């Protein structure tokens, strides 16, 4: 049973649109409440948009759909389905709608569990306005996450990395953030209806999130109608997946580097958001494209490098032209050939086949056009910014085979300010020891190009901190753990370890390696120190590491706190294909960040630490 998150979420939403009654496919009697109006707020709009199109809404009987904040007019004798977050603002809107009797009945669905005080607020409000009879049902949907692909999700939690690593953040704020992340993860697990085994590296936000999630799952399983009772039969560990939680500081390089594969490239350069892309079309207008698993080209070639993608477009185009020519030849459309009497029946059949295949051909042409457009835009950007140069030198840098003059050449060459900043930060991360003179030269080159070096300073400071306690007593694990617990998010003690592994020639990310080790379950020095949580096991047994909990898993859910990106997603998918037998890996993050977004967050952190570049205030932002 492979976990398909997108399908499960779509099913839940379909059920919700059916007024939370089980969808009876063969019911032919006209349901009294078959036409409904859907009302959502901004967050839930983001949840719905990658999953359902407007025309699909009509199949479920939704005639109109509105944002909750818009002024709406009454539509009598129609039930309204609300799908909103449980915030006081939304509750007030619902109360005002109910008091104005905008719709006949209200079916309230909250994207996550509505807290008790808000529920009481709602109750007293409706009682006061005497509109109790309007409220039909109240449901908790546990759908507060955005699924982009079958196995990719995001919690849309903005600036999580900044908040977690903020030096001025207090305990309460950190706990609040952890609570939000745990809530999102709980929704994901509730939708999949599984209770996984949780593993995470020691220290930092990962451990906090893991233990909080474990606690929440335990409490929930003890309550009487828990959401996981269906999965109660699957007690054996190899039916349960493993949930690996990581923190962004585990591997910073991936979030920053330039990558040349199609999916990360489109995300980074053109700004893919919620599977939608806005590109400048040939005729000069802005075209909006949708890129998800229903696009066959995107699904098949998302992980290819860019030159291969261009070739693939060519081949597809040639095949299409050949098919069109064949169709034209068969039906004599091109030259108006005379019809042979005996061949008439054959011609009719060909004509019918041609007419039937026309829609398919037009669709193929549209897909090819779309990707040609995207590829041309990408190509112009790549040429302008010399991105292929960046990718090449970054790879060489990661492997340690970079020449010093090449590095300086890249810094002085073409590329946006962000590209150069990213390159410089990668240099910092990849170099084992800090050679002060080199760093100064790099910094000077950055300042020449008028780049705001706050992020650079931040990483330099962190690395210095790291080096200071790494050199003190790197062998003793407990020392590092103490330090790590003190500086909540600032423990990138694994960075040097991760980078060392990168230098071992293989292009595999440290994350992929850790996940592979966790799935296989063989003893591995890298992951042996990882904590294990099993929400189903009794409390006393959680300390001991029972062997079955470490055993090989068939499925894994990997979660990155602080921001993930398509590079990690592609690498994890490659990993899952390489396994024997192919395993299933779902990847999620608090949000999906491009390299530029992430460096901006680092800049904010640098500024908070007071490391901003005073001289270049004019060029900043």
């Amino acid at each position, binding site marked *: 049973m492979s976990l398909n998150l997108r399908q499960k979420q779509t099913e839940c939403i379909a059920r919700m649109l059916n007024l939370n009654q089980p969808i009876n496919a063969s019911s*032919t009697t006209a349901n009294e409440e078959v036409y409904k109006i859907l009302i959502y707020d901004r967050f839930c709009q983001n949840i719905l948009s990658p999953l359902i199109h407007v025309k699909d809404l009509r199949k479920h009987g939704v005639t109109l759909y509105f944002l909750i904040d818009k002024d709406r*007019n*009454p539509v009598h004798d129609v039930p309204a389905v609300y799908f909103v977050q449980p915030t006081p603002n939304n509750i007030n809107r619902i109360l005002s709608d109910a008091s104005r009797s905008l719709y006949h009945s209200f079916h309230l669905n909250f994207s996550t569990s509505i807290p008790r005080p808000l529920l009481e607020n709602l109750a007293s409000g409706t009682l006061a306005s005497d509109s109790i009879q309007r409220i039909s049902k109240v449901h908790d949907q546990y759908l507060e996450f955005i699924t982009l692909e079958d196995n990719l999700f995001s919690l849309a939690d903005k600036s999580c990395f900044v908040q977690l690593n903020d030096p001025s953040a207090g305990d309460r704020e950190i706990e609040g953030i952890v609570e939000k992340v745990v809530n999102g993860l709980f929704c994901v697990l*509730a939708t999949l209806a599984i209770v996984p085994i949780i593993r995470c590296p020691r220290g930092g936000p990962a451990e906090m999130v893991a233990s909080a999630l474990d606690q929440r799952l335990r409490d929930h399983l003890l309550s009487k109608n828990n*959401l996981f009772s269906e999965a109660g039969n699957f007690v054996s560990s190899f039916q349960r997946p493993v949930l690996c939680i990581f923190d962004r500081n585990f591997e910073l390089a991936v979030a920053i580097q330039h990558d040349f594969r199609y999916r990360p490239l489109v995300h980074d350069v053109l700004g893919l958001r919620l599977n939608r892309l806005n590109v400048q079309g040939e005729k000069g207008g802005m075209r909006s494209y949708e890129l998800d698993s229903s696009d066959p080209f995107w699904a098949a070639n998302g992980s290819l490098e860019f030159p291969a993608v261009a070739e693939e477009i060519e081949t597809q185009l040639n095949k299409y032209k050949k098919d069109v020519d064949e169709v034209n030849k068969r039906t004599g459309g091109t030259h108006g050939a005379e019809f042979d009497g005996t061949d008439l029946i054959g011609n009719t059949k060909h004509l*019918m086949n041609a007419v039937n295949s026309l829609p398919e051909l037009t669709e193929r042409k549209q897909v090819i056009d779309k990707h040609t457009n995207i590829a041309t835009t990408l190509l112009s950007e790549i040429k302008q910014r010399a991105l292929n140069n960046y990718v090449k030198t970054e790879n060489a840098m990661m492997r340690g085979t970079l020449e010093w003059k090449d590095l300086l050449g890249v810094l002085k060459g073409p590329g946006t300010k962000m590209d150069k900043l990213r390159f410089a930060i990668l240099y910092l991360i990849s170099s084992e020891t800090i050679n002060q003179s080199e760093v100064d030269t790099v910094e000077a080159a950055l300042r020449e190009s008028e780049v705001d070096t706050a992020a650079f300073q931040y990483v330099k400071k962190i690395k210095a901190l790291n080096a200071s306690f790494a050199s003190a007593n790197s062998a003793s694990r407990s020392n590092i753990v103490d330090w790590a617990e003190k500086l909540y998010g600032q423990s990138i003690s694994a960075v040097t370890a991760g980078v060392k592994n990168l230098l071992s020639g293989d292009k595999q990310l440290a994350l992929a390696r850790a996940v592979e080790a966790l799935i296989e379950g063989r003893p591995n020095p890298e992951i042996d120190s990882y904590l294990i949580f099993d929400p189903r096991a009794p409390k006393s047994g959680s300390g001991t590491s029972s062997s079955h909990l470490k055993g090989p898993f068939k499925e894994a859910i990997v979660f990155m706190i602080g921001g993930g990106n398509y590079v990690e997603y592609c690498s994890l998918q490659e990993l899952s294909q390489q396994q024997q037998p192919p395993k299933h890996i779902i990847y999620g993050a608090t949000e999906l960040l491009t390299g530029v977004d992430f460096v901006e967050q680092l800049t904010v952190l640098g500024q908070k630490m007071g490391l901003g570049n005073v001289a270049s205030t004019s060029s900043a932002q």
Partner: protein
Amino acid sequence: MARARDRTEDFKDAVRHSARSLGYDEAKLASVMASFIIHKPPQRSPFSKAALKTLESIGELEEFLSKHRKDYMDLHRTTEKERDSIEHEVSVFVKTCQEQIDVLKNSINQEEETSKGWLGITTSKANADTIAHKHGVVLILSEKLHSVSAQFDKLRAVRFQEAINRAMPRRKLNRLTKKDSIETPKSDDVELGEPSELHNEPLRVQQQLLDDETRALQVELSNLLDTVQETETKMVEMSALNHLVSTHVLQQAQQIEHLYEQAVEATKNVELGNKELSQAIQRNSSSRTFLILFLFLNVHRETRTRNLFIEYGETMPFELLLIG
């Protein structure tokens, strides 16, 4: 499948709680709680009643189709006539449903017009959202009808295909059998000819003549049969193609109508624009002449006054000169 959590009970508890805190007495509390259990049946507007009825009839159509699908598809269960009758019934049904949907659409448009007619003051019944909702309902109904009729069209296409297939081998078979049948009489003739040669000559000649005639007739008739069958297959093909093209045209008919109306509007707008342009040009030219006239008059007046001064400059008293 994952379950959602029903919090209605919690909500009811919260209601009970706050009712008590607000000081509701028992009777009021009971009525409030009762409103949860007993829902007032919604007052349906005539529009929604009609819409629900149409939905029901489309549902019935679907049921009818699914019941008779096997009868229709299987070659040996029904005769051609029964299949035709099924087709006829289905098309009548589809037409009635389409009419009902059209009636609904007209009622929306009527309502829109009457509400606009009152100097733009819309009544509470007909506001933008309700109208949009009604359009949505009509759209859903028509989409459903389309999907059902598309299902039926697919079945019909399969039936045509089979008809064509049946026609083709039959033709080939007939050709072969015809050839055989033409061959055998000839051989019979030769055999018959020999024994009767010694018998009556004139009878034989007459017989031969008759035989020739019958043979000629036979050949003619078989040719006719051939052509008739060819036309038959051609007719079947044509009807299949016709049907195919008509479904596509129907699909696009609405869009084509829409485009046509837009084109008409566009031409009207362009005409209006032309009129405005010509008016503007006219005004421009007239204003230009006016301006020139005005300037000319001014200049003329100035020159005149100056001439006046030049003329009377010597005789005019000094003070008046200064005033000019």
